[in-house]
């Protein structure tokens, strides 16, 4: 390498050094300003505020108990749990509904196909935030009060205070059922590994899926009967102005969940449809010509190829749903963004608060994309 601008390698090095210097320079400038500003405003930076008393109540908590006397760290943890709660339920529900709508759009029934494509078009072309407000308005303004609550199914009550549903009373012996379930999963996994190895060795098939499903259902059921089948349903009842007993989905949670699921399902439907369509017709015909039964054609030929197209955009939809759950702050569901926002307003620790939000979402995104890279490598087409 010659140290002259005519040498391409020297130029490349020069550009890189300049770019790095510019970025570092801008960052350093911003950091100096920030430190000066923080000193001028007498804001102590750092995460010490996390151990201070939060002093605000949180409307709903999941898995973690919380009171106003707890500290900020615990409040943020509650927010994180709330984010995960809505994201997990949302992902499962959106996948099921989205897959259903995607198949419906390919239906031979004209009405079904047109209805699902109308659904997809309308949902995809309206901002999610508008949809969240819409669902929230429907629940909080248009549903009757608890005394006149709608009850579509006995034990379920829809009112402007949220959705009250019955729950099964927890019994100490249920942990045995859970243990049996975990054991059954392990056994089913071993059986399927054994069946695959045997098929590779001898060519003999074994109905590993159905056997596994049988074990997963039967073992917990047996455990349930063995402990004497204790079972009691707690049905919500009207007490004063609201329901007590059972589980209540608050209007905020219900609106957020409905909105996220309806929105993401429309995108998932398009992904599923594109995936199915990406498998060439000839594949189906060739598989049938080989004498495979229709269920085998779908399982052994269509799905493995369609999934290769479906899974990468599907995971990015899961990520989108999780990121979109941050819109909760607009309708007052206490997710991580909403709690961090309250903490920022109370303590003035803007940098730390926003840093926490970003760190949480970056961790989620990077882990999902790490998973996706692993999966893509695993299923990538092995070409000659």
């Amino acid at each position, binding site marked *: 390498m010659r140290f002259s601008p005519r040498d391409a390698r020297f130029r490349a090095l020069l550009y890189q050094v300049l770019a790095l210097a510019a970025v570092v320079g801008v960052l350093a400038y911003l950091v100096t300003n920030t430190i000066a500003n923080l000193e001028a405003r007498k804001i102590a930076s750092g995460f010490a505020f996390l151990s201070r008393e939060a002093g605000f109540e949180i409307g709903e908590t999941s898995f973690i108990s919380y009171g106003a006397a707890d500290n900020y760290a615990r409040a943020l943890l509650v927010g994180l749990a709330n984010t995960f709660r809505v994201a997990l339920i949302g992902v499962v529900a959106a996948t099921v509904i989205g897959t259903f709508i995607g198949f419906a759009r390919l239906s031979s*029934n004209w*009405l079904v196909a047109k209805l699902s494509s109308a659904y997809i078009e309308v949902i995809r072309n309206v901002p*999610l935030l508008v949809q969240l407000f819409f669902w929230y308005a429907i629940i909080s303004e248009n549903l009757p009060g608890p005394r006149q609550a709608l009850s579509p199914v006995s034990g379920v009550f829809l009112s402007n205070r949220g959705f009250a549903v019955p729950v099964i009373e927890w019994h100490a012996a249920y942990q045995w059922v859970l243990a049996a379930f975990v054991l059954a999963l392990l056994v089913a996994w071993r059986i399927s590994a054994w069946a695959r190895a045997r098929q590779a060795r001898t060519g003999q098939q074994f109905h590993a899926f159905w056997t596994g499903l049988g074990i997963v259902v039967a073992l917990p059921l047996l455990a349930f009967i063995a402990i004497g089948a204790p079972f009691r349903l707690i049905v919500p009842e009207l007490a004063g102005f609201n329901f007590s007993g059972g589980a209540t989905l608050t209007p905020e949670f219900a609106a957020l969940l409905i909105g996220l699921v309806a929105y993401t399902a429309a995108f998932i439907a398009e992904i599923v449809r594109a995936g199915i369509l990406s498998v060439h017709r000839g594949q189906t015909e060739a598989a049938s010509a080989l004498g495979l039964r229709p269920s085998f054609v779908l399982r052994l030929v269509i799905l493995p190829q369609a999934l290769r197209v479906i899974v990468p955009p599907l995971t990015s939809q899961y990520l989108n749903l999780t990121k979109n759950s*941050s819109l909760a702050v607009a309708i007052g569901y206490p997710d991580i963004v909403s709690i961090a926002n309250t903490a920022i307003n109370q303590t003035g620790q803007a940098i730390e608060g926003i840093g926490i*939000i*970003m760190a949480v979402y970056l961790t989620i995104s990077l882990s999902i994309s790490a998973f996706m890279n692993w999966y893509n490598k695993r299923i990538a087409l092995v070409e000659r």
Partner: protein
Amino acid sequence: MSLSRGAIGWSRENLFSGWGNTLVTLLIIWLAWKLALPFFDWAITKAIWVDPDAQACRAAKGVGACWALITEKHRLILFGTYPFEAQWRPALAVLVLVALYIISALRACWRPWLALAWVAGLGAIGVLMWGGVFGLVYVENERWGGLALTLLLATFGIAFAFPLSILLALGRRSEMPIIRWLSVGYIELIRGVPLISLLFMASVMLPLFLPEGLTVDKLLRAQIAMILFAAAYLAEVVRGGLQAIPRGQYEAAQALGLSYWKSMGFIILPQALRISIPPLVNVFIGFFKDTSLVLIIGLFDLLTTVKVSITEPKWTGYGVEAYLFASAVYFVFCFSMSRYSQALEVSLASSAARTPVKEAG
């Protein structure tokens, strides 16, 4: 006769082919009867359209929709708190923007003068919105709002994000490791966090970043956050276009002795951008929808003005009507853009397929 047999034949094939399909069709018709008819009743036949003092709306609550809310508040919803007698200015600005969208959509107008038209159009919009010259009263941008603000946020956001995104995409595919890492780091960082966190950052943290005495107003701060956000997403689309260009094109440009910037500017980018137009329009649709998030940091966009319109006591309780109207407005813009991008995809694909034939002949 033949027509009716056609209709019967068509419905036998598409609606009643087999007992399963027949059952589903009947179920849908029954549901439509039970749900769509009452909805139609509520939304059209029993709706209240004009009602200045909200008396009739109260009476019809739950029976008919109160579109009178929109009739009463349409000026607020469309233009926010812009001075009432000067609202023809944002109205004209919206028309100019829509006209710019339309001419940009026509392939016959994809000529160099289009860029000039945009510069002139955006300049005219600036004059209209701010005023202060030609006898127009000056209006500070805290008072801009409604549909005009939504369109401006989206348009300016994309206009500034696009050049930035091209640089980022080229950087991500660069052979210089530091440039590549910086671009990848930026793109993944921005794409990994929700837009809200960036907007919070712009509204709460940006003032801390700037030296004492230098302040940037709220609208500009939000606009900067949206530009930085859009650039990361656009960059990925542009990168997709760059990756789709065959290696031979890069090598041919190099063999001709073109420098990096010349080969990108004259050979690679024109082809890459052309095939990325449909996905670019899709990113724009997403971005247009995302402008509604500025509500959370207190800007007066279309969604905020809709939300504000139902805060006056006599108009509370009509959220469903208000948000249906907002949905309709967003839908008109987004749906026409998505249809356009689909049509464009087809026509670009067919013209790309035709080119070699033309050259041979």
